């Protein structure tokens, strides 16, 4: 499966650290005092049973939610909370559990949309499409084409994404996130609803992104096989609390994790 990577699991410099973050919606506590870090160039998985707070955690990281307490350190800057715009500018990109693509637009245009933050010429320059604006557009298109080549989606370049099968739409969404050239890529269930072949393809792309572009990746995933194969370190949430944080092998053997997934024994001995 995975070729031995140049870096040891979790030994790199800390890219993002979450300290003691709590979040509640009214009376519901989604996250309670969660702390963990993501180090440069690693693939970090966040797992947990349904409703454990995984997506909430990602939403805090990229600023969709404002935590009630705690702090977030990203690239050495300490904040109480992130703003989505600041997160995107700072180099955090993400994909969504339910696709969020422009369904009427082509694959190419969707990925090009991911370059929006990198466009420097103003609206009127772009309308003119002349001189520096044209140059800029050519450069962006080249980057997008590299991503299309990388994700092997050349055949669907000009097809509106609404007409594509689900697995391919997921790939386009990954492409759009990559177009931002992020330092940290957040993937919310990248394999959900995929068949085995699509899962294997997607796993390979995630590994390639990590190795070739050196992108740090945090992913939420339900498929344990995928998580164990892909990730360097795993953080496990249950009812909004962190119950484990270790390498995949250690997590697999952790009693708390097993209990969270399989339930508490209620005096019934087998």
């Amino acid at each position, binding site marked *: 499966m995975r*070729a*031995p990577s140049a870096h040891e699991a979790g030994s790199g410099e800390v890219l993002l650290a979450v300290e003691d973050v709590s979040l509640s919606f009214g009376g519901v506590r989604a996250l309670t005092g969660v702390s963990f870090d993501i180090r440069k160039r690693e693939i970090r998985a966040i797992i947990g049973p349904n409703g454990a707070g995984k997506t909430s955690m990602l939403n805090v990281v990229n600023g969709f939610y404002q935590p009630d307490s705690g702090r977030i350190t990203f690239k050495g800057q300490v904040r109480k909370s992130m703003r989505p715009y600041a997160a995107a500018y700072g180099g955090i990109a993400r994909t969504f559990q339910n696709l969020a693509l422009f369904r009427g637009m082509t694959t190419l245009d969707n990925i090009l949309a991911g370059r929006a933050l990198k466009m420097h010429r103003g609206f009127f320059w772009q309308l003119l499409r002349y001189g520096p604006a044209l140059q800029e557009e050519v450069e962006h298109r080249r980057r997008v084409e590299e991503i299309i080549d990388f994700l092997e989606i050349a055949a669907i370049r000009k097809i509106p994404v609404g007409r594509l099968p689900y697995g391919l739409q997921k790939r386009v969404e990954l492409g759009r996130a990559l177009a931002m050239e992020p330092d940290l890529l957040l993937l919310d269930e990248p394999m959900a609803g995929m068949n085995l072949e699509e899962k294997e393809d997607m796993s390979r792309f995630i590994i390639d992104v990590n190795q070739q572009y050196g992108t740090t990746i945090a992913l939420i995933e339900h498929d344990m096989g995928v998580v164990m194969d892909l990730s360097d370190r795993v953080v496990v949430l249950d009812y909004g609390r962190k119950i484990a944080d270790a390498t995949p092998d250690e997590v697999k053997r952790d009693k708390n994790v097993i209990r969270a997934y399989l339930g508490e024994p209620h005096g019934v001995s087998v």
Partner: protein
Amino acid sequence: MQALDPRLDTLPKLLLHNAAALGSRPAMRHKDLGIWQTWTWAQMLEEIRAFSIGLAELGLKRGDKFTIIGSNRPRLYWAMCAGQALGAVPVPVYADAVADEMAYVLAHAEVTLGVVEDQEQVDKVISVSDRVPQLRQVIYDEPRGLKDYDHSRLIAFTDVQAIGRKKLASDPAILAQWEAGIAAGKGGDLSVILYTSGTTGRSKGVMLTFANTIISALNANAFDRLDQNEEVIAYLPLAWVGDYIFSYVQSYTAGYCVNCPETAETVLQDRREIGTTYAFAPPRVYENLLTLTMVRMADAGALKRKMFDFFIAFARRWGEKILDGEKVPAGVRLLYGIGDLLVYGPLKNQFGLTRIRVAYTAGEAIGPEIFRFYRSIGMNLKQLYGQTEASVYVTAQPDHEIHPETVGKPSTDVEIKIADSGEVLFRSPGVFTGYYKEPERTAEVLTPEGWVRTGDAGFLDPKTGQLRIIDRAKDVGRLKDGTLFAPKYIENKLKFYPNIREAVAIGAGRDCVCAMINIDLTAVGSWAERNNVVYASYQELAGNARVYDMIARHIDEVNRSLSEEEIMAGAQIRRFLILHKELDADDGELTRTQKLRRGHINERYAPLVEAFYNGATEAQIATEVTFEDGHKGVIAARVMIRDMKPYPVPAAKMGRAA
């Protein structure tokens, strides 16, 4: 006949010549990052030269074998020529070959170096490298994913070129030395070994010289008047002789441009963008295109569908006549013109075939309906018959002499003869020199006089003078009275009817031909629905007397068409039955690729075969079947046998049967 110019008798010599004569014309294109990248002949020479000298620095020398594995990319084609410039011999291998097959070929050919496309192929070669002891080095085109691999025996294509360029810059004598190496090459030199993916046994390495392939290519170019203005798209496997001749040797001899698609999935779009003028494809490609169209038309609005149906029916009637330059009424020509504007033109544009001048289908028999469809909308589709051992061309159809059932006239310089057994033999300048390291198997195929046994049975059609292939020679037998009996030929005629799914013709060594039929449940089922025939199962429908009547009508038509063919007339179907169960691969009656296993069928249905020849009108049969979940059961049935009245055989032709 084309004479081979001794100054241009190898491919590297042709490259030098083209770079000088056609320097600024495009030689190759490749769609990369969404844009067509073009190399002129002069640029291509520079790329190949740098790589070739790099290969020499890595130790590749005259007589060495090296492999090429991957899809149609310019660098892999360049690698072939770069190696040949040094006198080394390329051995392209099918990119989708399984590891065992690849290991066998690489070891048998004693390959010392590999030029492969990407990580996938590198992995495959590494996985078999312990079985290929001579293999020293692997060169890859696409670096993605290979960064962390052990590079002691691995090197990037561009790095090899960099070595070559550095050598060229530092050593002033190297250029002359390299060109002298090319000049030392001769037409009779071994130029390539192509392993045929034999249907039986291990694959054999067909050795072809430069002269073999270059003369064949020159003849083919002259036959279809191909010149430097052609555009072709290279998308068939590199290891297949068709692609080698068509995308490499014919391009070098005619000077035309070869376009490499972006990926295997984008070929259709890429073809549209390029507008190819010359094309070569197995029937499957044409079938798929047509199916795609029909499916899309089924989804179109009523008006469009009506228009489509009308003009396609019209084209079916007149299109081929117009294509063949026959005289047709002015009104027909006008309406055809409108059809071209509304339907045929846009359709060809969708297929990327607007500019096509010549298109060939080869490899296997194409359905006559499909063949006629493309011709009727104005595409010059022709058939050819070729073999690796012939450097492709054995026969080809000249323009305006097209018949769906023939494969054409002997190509230029090709002699054809039919052996007493019915097997087709040929002799030509393109004939291979032998199978690599297998003189016994060579002797089985190549006679001392230079004739090659094709393994196919056929005859020269007296009406058209063209070759017709009827069956594999080993399947062709004779009836008791000596009449030629070609089971597949008869079966294919039967299977042409949608109601007949499978047919088994029996007759070798017997008095007459009998046939066992499988009806097509979908087609016959829908007929039954429309005709108020009630049935509960395949078996019940198969035994229905009205179904028998229907099949009898089909067989009658087949008999009539057989009676019109001189050598087939004696092999008309005298008796038939409809089998009570469908032939199935799970029961060992078909192979996994849906081909009949005759021996096994004869054994299983022995009581029916016996009944055929003892005059019984029905027979009792019980066969064991395997259900989809694996458990076995027995189906028993009484099967009716029908007699058929044969058409009279033209008396004048009776005598020839023996």
